[in-house]
């Protein structure tokens, strides 16, 4: 009897999750509907205007989609040279040693730092450097935001890829060694290919994390509502435009912000799904 009650409670609690998720999607869609209806879905996606002059309001998502994609891809690019060696260090070269466990603890610690702290560090430490190097006049730029974003996603990419590297069967590695292979060749020709799709998927999941990162980006991107013409210019990401303007927006503008939120949600969900599917189909 108590087993039955327990089961019912479990079922009810578990079914809350899909309900909440559905509720969020429903709210996003209904609130975004006004903007899509007014501008047209594709027009909204591709328009680069963002002006709230009364009587002639023009909103389009393109500058922010571009800003998000630029920061995310740059962050990914900057993240790889750090996360891949860390993954190899903890997952293969120093696997099981004390120094590897210390390193992975520190990496995990990085993942736990609140994004506002990364933002502060970027704002007060990195931004002056960017300014001093004459890369960008105010120091805020797509580049600045991407650099900090890269540091933030290193732990996700590194610890997950290390898991996949660790999972490469030992007898496969030994087989390669038994053929007279050096360690570097074993890494290059056996470990990377075998763990490849897993490593790839961990970067996809890291991207998913970078796409939605709000606080750090808002503090460092410069908040300009136009398509950035280079990586050193200022811009806005989908998340940062929402964070900047939701408080003062209403009507069509609010609906447009929510529409951007919906697009971001769809992109992130798709990216995460691709990552999960790849993990399932990875060769290990």
């Amino acid at each position, binding site marked *: 009897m108590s087993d039955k009650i327990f089961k019912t409670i479990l079922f009810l609690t578990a079914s809350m999750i899909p309900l909440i998720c559905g509720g969020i999607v429903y709210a996003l869609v209904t609130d975004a509907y006004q903007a899509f209806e007014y501008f047209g879905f594709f027009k909204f996606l591709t328009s680069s205007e963002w002006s709230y002059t009364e009587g002639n309001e023009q909103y389009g998502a393109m500058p922010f989609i571009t800003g998000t994609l630029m920061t995310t891809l740059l962050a990914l690019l900057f993240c790889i040279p750090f996360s891949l060696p860390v993954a190899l260090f903890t997952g293969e070269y120093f696997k099981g040693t004390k120094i590897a466990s210390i390193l992975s603890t520190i990496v995990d610690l990085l993942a736990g730092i609140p994004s506002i702290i990364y933002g502060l560090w970027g704002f007060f430490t990195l931004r002056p450097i960017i300014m001093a190097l004459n890369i960008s006049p105010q120091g805020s730029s797509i580049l600045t935001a991407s650099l900090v974003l890269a540091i933030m996603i290193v732990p996700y990419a590194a610890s997950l890829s290390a898991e996949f590297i660790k999972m490469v*069967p030992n*007898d*496969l590695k*030994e*087989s*390669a*060694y*038994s*053929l*007279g*292979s*050096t360690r570097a*060749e*074993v890494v290059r*020709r*056996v470990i990377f*290919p*075998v763990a*490849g799709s897993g490593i790839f998927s961990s970067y996809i999941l890291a991207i998913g994390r970078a796409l939605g990162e709000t606080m750090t980006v808002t503090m460092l991107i410069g908040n300009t509502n136009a398509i950035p013409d280079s990586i050193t210019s200022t811009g806005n990401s989908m998340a940062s435009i929402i964070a900047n303007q939701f408080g003062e927006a209403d009507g069509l503008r609010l609906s447009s912000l929510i529409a951007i939120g919906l697009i971001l949600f769809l992109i992130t969900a798709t990216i995460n799904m691709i990552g999960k599917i790849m993990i399932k189909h990875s*060769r290990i």
Partner: protein
Amino acid sequence: MESIESILEFNKTCVSYTKNTMAVKYVSAEIEKNSITAIMGPSGCGKSSLLRAVNLMHELYPNIKVEGEILLNGKNILSMNPIEVRRRIGMVFQRPTPFPTMSIQENVLAGFTLNGLRLDKYQREEIVENTLKSVSLWDEVKDVLNKKGTFLSGGQQQRLCIARALALKPDVLLMDEPTSALDPIATKHIEELLTELQKEVTILIVTHNMGQAKRISKRSMFMYLGELVEYDLTETMFSTPKDERTKEYLTGRMG
């Protein structure tokens, strides 16, 4: 034992995993060239540890110490470069281990690619065909050379792994219970193959299948608790074991 033309010689070889526990204790034995020598013994007797000492596999694990000497053509392996040793001494593992991302052809040639040795197209084709023929796999796979090796049956995969080891033309082939994951028919195939192969390569095989040792090996070692208890012609050992422990093992009272 009569004098033999040896290629490999253990001289007081010891393997220890921790400071105080020796897995292999002072093993001395000469391995005859172009023959099959079996290493038998119950689980944990040190037979695999001894085998893995030969191609310096233990050097991959810093905790494991190998002492004494292992001579390959009179030169001590333990002071040689492991990469060079492993190119001359091939190994086949318990479970078939074709590289899952490589095709059948690439698997055969893996020893060359992993060592950064470049071959032209003609050499590649020749090595692939000859090696696969020598493990009698050629007829079965010649039309699917570009398919992944993991699509083959267990027995075929194991023959592919033998081919991969043989492609580098090693002097010695080490086999660590190579048929324990295979069905009886595949096992029979491999055993017949080994009997053929001993003309070209010296085979040292760890097995806990006494029947297998009896069927294919010329000489047998019996190890117990890290010691080499008895080493003799297989026929002699099975008919008249000298040591009580060997007798107990062979009659199934221990194992």
